[in-house]
């Protein structure tokens, strides 16, 4: 069942048209080199409803599903992985507000995110415990009408530029991680947040990344997301949803690398033949096509299952692993097919490869994600 319905096809077309009209290659090369966020494109995309398409309509969202959000990200990243990633991640972590926030929290932030006024980021991981959330040491202590947050979070997307962060904190030092962690929303301009930029990265350079330190950051009690003590379960549920969205970005990146390689091998001649006439090129192209289609099938299926409210059985995580792997492999092969040109920034495929590689490190990395799948499919050992 990979057929899209009419509305989904329209969304995909609208996103492709927008990307074709607004994403300029030369500008993108400059912005990527300068680690610059595509501010104006983001505003336009938000105006047209491409940001927060999966937020409820009551909060300036599109009221649509994750599949619709995926189709937009795929189309954007296919045209330009760096811009596409920046636009998709402008709402990074906002799903926590959608799923766990009460009406007041949603009203305070979701419209501003969807309308392109502020960006969102999430701080879950810490240097001390790496990708293992059970070791979170950042604390939130309740004090009358406030929570006071202390600790540090690493590699936060939009760190330093987000209007709001979703932060995972320990709220009960005695309890097990399953009961002792909670999620909070923290406004970016709260006092006591120190930002240390991660500097330039291998890829995804239109998205700022930073380590955040929280020193006695006071937030109102209303900023608790959902129930106290449910943070770990909420974070894991978020990863399942975010996994699908990242898979879609990777799918777009892979498809974009494939498109460019396909065009190139049909044009470029060596030894008086088109590259596409060589059997080894044809084998490579076929392999790339298989990989892209696999990534698409698992991503769309995960999105559909999520939108239908069915049990995910790790499919979102599996989609994230599969699509990220695909994007790296397909972009890598695209560079090889381009030969020397593939190594030049001008060809774009080298950037797709770098962006893909960075996407493959999200959500704690593939080893952590596989450990999670293993926990789930193996279950408790007697």
């Amino acid at each position: 069942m990979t057929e899209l319905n009419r509305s989904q096809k329209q969304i995909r077309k609208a996103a492709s048209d927008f990307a074709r009209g607004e994403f300029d290659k030369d500008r993108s090369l400059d912005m990527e080199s300068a680690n610059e966020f595509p501010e104006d494109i983001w505003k336009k995309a938000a105006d047209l409803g491409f940001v927060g398409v999966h937020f409820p309509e009551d909060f300036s969202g599109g009221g649509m599903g994750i599949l619709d959000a995926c189709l937009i990200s795929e189309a954007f990243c296919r045209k330009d992985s760096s811009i596409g990633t920046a636009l998709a991640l402008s709402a990074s972590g906002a799903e926590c507000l959608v799923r766990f926030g009460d009406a007041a929290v949603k009203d305070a932030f979701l419209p501003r995110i969807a309308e392109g006024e502020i960006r969102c980021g999430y701080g879950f991981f810490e240097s001390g415990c790496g990708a293992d959330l059970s070791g979170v040491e950042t604390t939130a202590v309740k004090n009358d009408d406030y929570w006071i947050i202390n600790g540090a979070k690493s590699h936060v997307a939009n760190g330093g530029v987000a209007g709001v962060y979703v932060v995972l904190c320990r709220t009960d030092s005695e309890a097990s991680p399953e009961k002792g962690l909670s999620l909070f929303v923290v406004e970016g301009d709260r006092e006591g947040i120190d930002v240390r930029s991660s500097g330039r990265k291998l890829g995804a350079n239109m998205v700022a990344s930073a380590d955040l330190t929280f020193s006695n950051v006071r937030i109102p009690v209303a900023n608790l997301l959902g129930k106290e003590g449910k943070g770990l379960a909420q974070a894991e549920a978020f990863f399942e949803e975010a996994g699908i969205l990242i898979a879609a970005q990777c799918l777009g990146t892979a498809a974009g690398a494939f498109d460019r390689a396909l065009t190139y091998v049909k044009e470029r001649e060596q030894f008086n033949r088109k590259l596409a006439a060589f059997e080894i090129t044809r084998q490579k192209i076929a392999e790339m096509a298989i990989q892209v289609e696999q990534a698409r099938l698992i991503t769309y299926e995960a999105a559909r299952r999520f939108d239908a409210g069915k049990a995910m059985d790790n499919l979102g995580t599996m989609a994230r692993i599969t699509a990220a792997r695909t994007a790296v492999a397909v972009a890598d092969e695209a560079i090889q097919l381009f030969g020397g040109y593939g190594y030049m920034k001008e060809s774009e495929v080298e950037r797709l490869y770098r962006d893909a590689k960075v996407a493959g490190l999200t959500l704690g990395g593939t080893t952590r994600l596989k450990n999670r799948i293993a926990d789930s499919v193996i279950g408790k050992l007697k």
Partner: protein
Amino acid sequence: MEILNYTEEHNRFRERLREFCETEIMPHVDQWEADHIVPKAIWQKMGRGGFLCPTLTGEYGAIGGDFIHSLIVCEELSRTLQTGLAAGLHSDVVVPYIESFGSDEQKRKYLPGCVSGDIVTAVAMTEPGAGSDVAGMETTAVEDGDEVVINGSKTFISNGVICDLVVLAAKDPAVENKHQAVSLYLVEDGTPGFKKGTQLEKMGWHSQDTAELFFTNCRIPKSNRLGDKGSGFFMLMGKLQQERLVCSMGGVVAAERILEYTMEHCKTTRVCGKPLSKSQAIQFALVEMATEAKLGRTFMEKLVADHMAGENVIVETSMAKYWTTDLANRMANRAIDLVGEFGALEACPLSRALRDARVMAIFAGTNEIMKGIAAKFMGL
């Protein structure tokens, strides 16, 4: 038992070079990466130190070493995490054309400068329309009295901006057989009609000045032809074994550096109180990576030994070029996965290592070309 016979002299050479790298190169690498070029002075310092063209004889001011010296230069430079000071390309790929095919006069004129670092060399084969298909080149060289007139352009030329001397492949348009049409010429920087383009923006090799070269009615003396007219292809083919071996050396040492860093990182980075290296998944990955690095090292050293013994190992060096350069890529990719998000920051050397490694599977003949050559020689 060692495959290569490292002598005391080799060890002293390595120690001197390592110290040179630490004092003269490492402190400047980030600046060179930002500048997209290294200063000419570092080439001269390398030369004065005896680290350029180590296999040339004392007649030209060189140390008169062997190919193990070349390997040592490759190994020690890999520790500097920069590619701009491409000593291996100069000493072991370009200069050998002059050494093997140059006239006595050409050798006396150019080789001392190549050794001292006053003359930095580049080789210009690749063209916009002729990458893997070298014979498809369109740059022409037409004899006119005592001169040769060159027209055309070359691309992806390493040392393209800094070079003082170019070994240029060009064809005589009057000769139909394209393999017999190619000759090699020595073109000096500053020759009227020879223009260098600006540095190309690349994924990696940021300290390396890769550029396009343009020749417009560029006149050089006929005496600047290298070897016999029409023997260019023969000369290029004759040097490919060493060129591929140099690439394999680069691939292996890049993989070793990546492994070294990753091992150290995993041993010293504690997560939830436990070093990363105590995770079984990470242990197995590192063991697999170390095994591959050892396989690469063993294969490469055997080929260095065979090459030094004058054996024909063109098939094996083609295999080694593809396998070891793929190895470097594979290693960088896995290393970053093990290190996680920190591995993708430019603050971590693995990020540059991945960007720098990627071109090795492409340059000096893509890995697809390598497999094609091996297939042919294997009688397939």
